[in-house]
C-alpha cells in the first residue's frame, strides 16, 4: 500500500472520458483489461456520474469506491466522506466497522448531521442509494415488502431518502441484482419520490430520479411519461435479457449503446482502494456472504493499520 499516493495522484492516469458512451482515451494509452468483474464495471459507471464540488457520502462500498474513483480521475474537487457523516478529505477505504476510525486516524474533517442535511437542502450533496425496490416511475422502497401496516417483510425504514428526493437535482440509484423482485412495476412503499403525479404537483422537478445502474445496464426515466428507459447495456447483455428481468416494458434507444468498460487504470484504482474486496459482499448472499463478511471483519484492522499509519506519520 506504500505506493498508493503516487498511483492515485490525479493527472497521472488517463481519465476515462466524459459522459457515458462519449469516452475519449487520453494518453498514455491504457491497455484494455478485459478481466474486470461486475462490481468494477458498476463502480466505474457510477464514478462517471459524479462531478463538481459537492459532498459525496459513503454509505455502501460501491458508493464509496465510485466517489473515490471519480475524485482520483475526472472530479478532483469532490468532497468525499468516509462515513455517512464524517471523514472529509480521506481515502474512503471500504470497511465493515472502521469508517469512523479512518476519520480519526487519517485526520479527516468531521462533519455533523446538521452539516449533512444542510448540504442536502442546498443541493451540494450526492449519494448512490441501493434500494430494495425501484420502479418504472423512479420511486424507491427500503421500508417494507407488502403493505406498510402488515408487511410481508419489514425492511429498515425510509432513513434519509425522502430528504434526498425532495431536494437534490441529481438522484442516483443502483441495484446489484436486476430481477423482477428489485426492479418492479410499482414499489410497495414509496420511501423516495419518483415521477408520480402528486410529486410533480407538490415538489415539481427538483429531486427527480436521474439514473439507475444495475448489473444489466444503465437506465434513466426518459421513457414515455417519465418511465424507465435504457441508456446503455453492459457488454454481453441484450434487450431480451432486460425484458426477461423486468416486469414492465423498458424504452430502448436505437441503436442500443454498450456501456463503456473500465480502463486498466480505473481497475487499478478500485483494487488498490479496496484491498479486502468489501465491494464483492454486495453481490453475495447466504453462506457465501456470511463467510466473506467474517473474513473481512477479521482482517480489516490490519489493513487499516497498513494503509493509514504510514500516511499519518508522514504528516
Amino acid at each position, binding site marked *: 500500500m506504500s505506493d498508493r499516493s503516487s498511483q492515485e495522484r490525479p493527472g497521472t492516469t488517463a481519465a476515462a472520458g466524459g459522459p457515458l458512451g462519449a469516452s475519449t482515451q487520453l494518453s498514455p494509452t491504457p491497455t484494455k483489461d478485459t478481466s474486470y468483474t461486475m462490481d468494477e464495471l458498476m463502480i466505474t459507471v457510477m464514478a462517471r456520474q459524479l462531478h463538481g464540488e459537492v459532498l459525496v457520502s459513503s454509505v455502501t462500498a460501491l458508493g464509496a469506491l465510485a466517489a473515490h474513483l471519480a475524485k482520483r480521475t475526472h472530479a478532483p474537487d469532490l468532497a468525499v466522506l468516509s462515513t455517512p457523516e464524517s471523514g472529509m478529505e480521506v481515502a474512503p477505504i471500504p470497511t465493515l466497522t472502521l469508517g469512523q476510525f479512518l476519520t480519526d486516524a487519517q485526520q479527516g474533517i468531521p462533519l455533523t448531521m446538521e452539516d449533512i442535511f444542510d448540504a442536502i437542502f442546498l443541493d451540494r450533496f450526492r449519494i448512490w442509494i441501493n434500494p430494495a425496490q425501484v420502479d418504472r416511475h423512479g420511486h424507491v422502497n427500503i421500508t417494507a415488502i407488502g403493505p406498510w401496516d402488515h408487511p410481508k417483510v419489514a*425492511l429498515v425504514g425510509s*432513513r434519509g431518502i425522502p430528504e434526498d428526493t425532495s431536494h437534490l437535482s441529481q438522484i442516483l440509484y443502483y441495484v446489484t441484482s436486476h430481477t423482477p423482485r428489485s426492479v418492479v412495476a410499482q414499489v410497495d412503499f414509496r420511501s423516495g419520490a419518483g415521477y408520480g403525479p402528486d410529486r410533480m404537483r407538490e415538489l415539481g422537478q427538483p429531486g427527480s430520479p436521474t439514473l439507475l445502474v444495475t448489473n444489466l445496464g444503465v437506465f434513466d426515466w426518459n421513457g414515455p411519461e417519465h418511465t424507465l428507459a435504457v441508456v446503455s447495456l453492459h457488454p454481453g447483455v441484450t434487450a431480451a435479457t432486460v425484458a426477461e428481468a423486468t416486469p414492465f416494458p423498458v424504452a430502448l434507444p436505437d441503436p442500443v449503446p454498450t456501456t463503456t468498460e473500465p480502463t486498466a487504470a480505473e481497475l487499478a484504482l478500485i483494487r488498490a482502494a479496496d484491498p479486502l474486496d468489501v465491494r464483492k459482499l454486495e453481490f453475495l448472499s447466504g453462506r457465501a456472504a456470511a463467510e466473506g463478511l467474517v473474513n473481512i471483519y477479521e482482517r480489516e484492522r490490519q489493513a487499516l493499520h497498513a494503509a493509514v499509519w504510514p500516511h499519518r506519520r508522514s504528516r
Partner: protein
Amino acid sequence: MNKLMRIDEVVDAIPAGATIAVGGSSLSRKPMSLVRALAARGRGDFRLIVDVGGPEVDLLLGTEKVRQVVYAFVGFEIMGLAPHFRRARESGSVAFQEWTEFTVMAGLDATVKRVPFLPTHVGLGTDVLAVNDAFRRFPDPFGGETLVAVPALAPDFALIHVNLADPQGNGVILGDGHVDVLCAKAAKRTILSAERVVSAEELQRYGRDVQIHRIHVDGVVEAQWGAHFTGCAPYYRADLRHVQDYLTAARDPASWAAYVDRFIGDRHADYIAAVGGAEALIGRLEV
C-alpha cells in the same frame, strides 16, 4: 453538582410509559449498558424515539418493553435486518411511526425551540406522509407552496453514550456525533453513560469535543465498554461476532430466552464477564 449515578438508579428513575430518546446510530455508540438494564428490569410500556436505531430498539422489543417506536431506520446495517423489529412490524404487536432522519432531528429541535412544529419539504412525494399521521401538509402563509409541518418530539428521557464525561454532566464525543446533542437538549432528563468519568479539569482540555453540556444533563453513569456490542470510536469497533450470536439467538424463543438469561441484566460488570472479559474485548475490538 455531582450527578454520578449507578445503572440500577437510572432504571428506577424511569417510570412506566416514559418516552425515551436514544442516541447513537445503528451499530455506533448506542448506550447499551443502560439499554440492557432497562431490558432486564425497566418498567416498560416505553415509547422510543430513534433517528437511526439498531440493537437498542431490537433488544427492548425482544424483551417486550415497548409500546411505540418512532424511527427513521431500524437495522443492523451490513449484518442484516433487526429480527425483533421485523417480527413486531410484521405482526403489528407494537405501534410504529415511520419518520425520516431529518424530521426526527426537526421534531427534537422544535421541542428545543419551544415551537409546536418546524416546516420542511421532506416527505412530499413519498408514502411517509400517507402512513404517519403525525405530519400535516400546510400552505406556506407567505407564498402558498405546500410544506410539511413536523410536530415537536418531546422525550421524557434521553440516553446517550459518550467517550468521556465529568461528574457534572459535560460529555466528550470523539467519533461521529449523530443526533445526540439534539436528544440531550430536547429531553426533560438526560442520562449519559461514559467510557470513563474524569475530573472537570481534565474534561475541559477536550475543547470543542465537549459536545454535551452539563446544563442539559441530569445523570452520569460510568460504564467502560458501555456501548458494546456496538462500537465506540476511536476506542473500539462494533463486535460483529456478538451481533452474529445475537441474530442467531433471536431465531427462536428458546435460544432467545437463553441469550437474555446469559447477557441481559443491570450489572454491567456481569455482562463484560459474560462476553469474555475486558482482556478478550481489547484483543478483538480495540483499533
